[in-house]
């Protein structure tokens, strides 16, 4: 009972504070694909500097957020997109769904992380990088040797021991496919995937699942991303995170203002803040590569040579050819119904 009164009082107090603050407060609807556990921290850090702007998160996986935004094209619900794949933002940019804006201090960022239009329509936050999660315990049981390159993964010894995300549903899966096409060239890239397909046990819907499956020993090798691998390793999984020698694909999480927002001023404040050094330090807790040069500190369990191995990613290629690549991929690999094992 007493506790209830306490609760009522504190809720009441919260309402009073809210009413007081709302004199010049704004609420922003922010669409994001950032991992759920990071969101509260991002909002809290931002509110330390801007207590008058309340963030209402709408969070889902990359594919779903992208689908949502495109579906709402004529009736945008979001004010700001904070933390969505740059490839998706490019798709939206070409639909004129983003408001061009040069945030204060944008010149401090690594130009690779800023849209080339002027004023830019989006700015990058951090990069998420493909990697291979390798379960040492299960691999030893199956008598496998650790692969060193993408090419190695096509060797017959790995038959049925590899899982990767389906690029049709997973942003990480698409990033792998687009990187192979860029690194090896179109023809060689598809040849490579033909060979790899022979070894794939199955394709998962999400990008983090292959690594989690590898962590749980369900499969020895999961093609996923480094951040996920590092987390599972920190949880105690017998994982080794392998960076294939040819180079690895990556995509960045990026920020943009949705065209037609009613809260332009608040949205600009948020985007200004999202590229500050402080914000980038915040991104660094999960991501080893961030947009602000000189900020990044090494992340625990992250493979040390990851940075050098990031390919020179052509996001426009990825965005403009996305539909065609996915169609080709689907006709090549999705029609095989029987799982191989």
């Amino acid at each position, binding site marked *: 009972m007493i506790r209830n009164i306490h609760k009522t009082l504190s809720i009441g107090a919260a309402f009073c504070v809210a009413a007081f603050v709302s004199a010049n407060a704004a609420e922003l609807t922010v669409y994001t694909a950032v*991992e759920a556990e990071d969101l509260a921290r991002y909002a809290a850090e931002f509110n330390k500097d801007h207590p008058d702007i309340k963030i209402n998160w*709408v*969070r889902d996986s990359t594919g779903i957020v992208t689908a949502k935004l495109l579906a709402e094209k004529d009736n945008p619900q979001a004010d700001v997109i904070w933390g969505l794949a740059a490839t998706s933002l490019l798709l939206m940019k070409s639909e004129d769904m983003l408001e061009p804006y040069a945030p204060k201090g944008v010149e401090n960022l690594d130009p690779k992380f800023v849209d080339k239009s002027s004023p830019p329509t989006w700015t990058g936050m951090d990069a998420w990088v493909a990697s291979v999660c390798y379960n040492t315990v299960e691999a030893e049981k199956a008598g496998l040797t650790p692969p060193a390159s993408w090419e190695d993964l096509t060797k017959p010894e790995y038959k049925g021991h590899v899982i990767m995300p389906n690029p049709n549903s997973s942003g990480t899966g698409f990033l792998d496919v687009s990187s192979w096409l860029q690194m090896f060239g179109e023809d060689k890239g598809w040849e490579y995937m033909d060979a790899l397909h022979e070894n794939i046990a199955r394709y998962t819907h999400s990008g983090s699942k292959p690594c989690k499956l590898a962590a*749980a020993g369900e499969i020895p090798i999961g093609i996923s991303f480094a951040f996920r691998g590092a987390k599972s390793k920190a949880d105690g999984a017998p994982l080794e995170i392998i960076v294939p020698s040819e180079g690895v694909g990556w995509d960045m999480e990026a920020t943009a203002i949705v065209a037609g927002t009613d809260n332009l001023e608040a949205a600009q404040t948020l985007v200004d803040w999202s590229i500050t050094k402080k914000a980038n330090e915040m991104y660094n807790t999960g991501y080893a590569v961030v947009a602000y040069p000189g900020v990044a500190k090494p992340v625990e369990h992250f493979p040390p040579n990851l940075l050098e191995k990031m390919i020179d990613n052509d996001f426009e290629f990825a965005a403009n050819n996305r539909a065609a690549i996915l169609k080709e991929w689907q006709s090549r690999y999705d029609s095989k119904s029987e799982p191989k094992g």
Partner: protein
Amino acid sequence: MTDLTYSDIPAGKNIKPKLAFDDWIMRAFIAMISLYLIIALALPLYSMLSKSVATYHFDLTQFEFQVSDEEGNFSGDIKTAAALNDEVNAYGPEDLAAGSNDRLKVTAFFPDFSFRSPVLYKIRGVTSDAVYIYGSERHTGPEWNEYDSNQFRKIVLRPIASFGLSNFSRYFSTPSLVRSITNSLVISAISTIITVSLAFWFAYSLARSCMRFKGFFRLIAMAPILVPSLLPGIALVYLFGNQGMLKSFMMGESIYGPIGIIIGSVFFTFPHAMLIITTALAISDARLYEAAVTLRSSPWRTFWTVTIPGARYGLISAAFVVFNLVITDFGLPKVIGGQFNMLAVDIYKQVIGQQNFEMGAVVSVVLLIPALIAFTIDRLIQRKQVALLSARSVVFVPKENPKFDWACFVYCSLITIFIAGILGVCQYAALIKFWPYDLSLSLKNYAFDLMDGGGWAAYRNSIKLALLTAFFGTIVVFIGAYMVEKTHGFRTGRNLFQFLAMLPMAIPGMVLGLAYIFFFNNPSNPLHIIYATMAILVLSTVTHFYTVSHLTAVTALKQMDNEFESVSASLKQPFYKLFARVTVPVCLPAILDISIYLFVNAMTTVSAVVFLYSTGTALASIAVLNMDDAGDIAPAAAMGMMIFYTNVAARTVHAALSRMLVKRTQAWRSR
């Protein structure tokens, strides 16, 4: 003398009974609830159908090009892309049919194109709706833009919207998509045969043997109704996955694929089949068995000539219900299907993975066809089943037969172990710290707030949705059923209403959800304010489960003699007094049944709401799906079991409440 024929008699006055004020009110109610069904069902389906014929294609006459010479002087002809394509045949007609996100490369129109060449290119749209993209910049309208060769290769054209059937031809020319049709049909057929056979023997044991623990067996067999259909998939991963406890049982086969889908489907459709067959066996007439004994027919012969024919409608009906459940289910093939594509998963992949809403609509239409056929056959057969009942039937009472009873007991125990085992494995997995490396018990998998999917808030949302659905759904359904049962005349209106009320059962949840996106997320629709709120979830769930609730209500109302209305009318009582004082109290058991049915289904449903939830309204069942999707399988199992316990609790409350109310309001039934 001339013959008098009908036509010679002057046509009489068309006699119409006078409509009382009550009749008008009741008709207004029918109209209101019809309007509800039209808004919540017919219009969304219409927008989905129109989306499936909304196509895109590249209109090459919309774009004009001019090419310079090596010095950069533009002196050549201005040509449209269509003219260029005629010259070089870069793209065939099938390349020009497109999805909404497709892009077309322009360099293919220029066979001698090289990005190192000094040649310059000009491009413009002829009409104002022509769109092309340079890199990621969007350009429209008739302004000329000039690019050098290196830039020119970054130009792609965008398709324009039109109408036609090209989405369907694209669908049927994509082997990976078409294959799902066969996959879905085959899996559903196999699951149906297995489930109906297993359920028949189970129901037969319950109805025709004198074994012990019948109540317990029935209780366990009903448990799968209380969990989302994807939960057995999770259990199967722990049982037969690569690190599974019983992996050796698979003999090298993979559980990810058809085998997993079939086992899981048998689990979640078993109670549905069992209920229908039990009802069918219960109505059989003991006199026929007496006759068979008198005629010295062997038990075997009696079984085939009396039992099976008597239950045949039940069997066929169960078969179609199971078939429909399996073919429209989305959660299970998503969790355990591996590379095996099914239609319902294809819808999800098209919409969520590729943002290809048009193709999602096409797959929905394809999925609608078998669902509609199965539904229609089931309805026709249900009608016949009722005719079998005769007032002179004598209830069959089984006699003791130790051997047979013992066999039934063993069989039912095996089924019970299968069902309880699946649930037990989920609960066990939820409590394991880190399968298979750290088998110590912990509650860490219940820390939902640290994972994707919405955390504990999703669980609370689910309960809220279930309560709201049960409350509003029961009111709407029961009033609708009452009005349509007890109104006089007004044939057309009532038939239309009956049709609308039966329709939801034929509509797969995925299709309904997608239709809701198209209909409610349209800014010109004044109802779009409910998009992304709890209201749209309640609306879709009530609509999705409307039919069974409606039938329950109608059955209960049919048992009430129409004399009540006549008496009440002759006493000049308005119908609402009768409704509140007599009808509702008499039908209370049925009303409670409807609300618990809606509650349980709102807790477990995935398919209709997966397209409609938003961050503020994430649901527990969706969280199970998303956590499994992200690879957090143990937390997914934990959340699934939370849904199970909640439904068990709700059922218990329902049982206690029913008993209490029946005592208070139904005492008149027993004399």
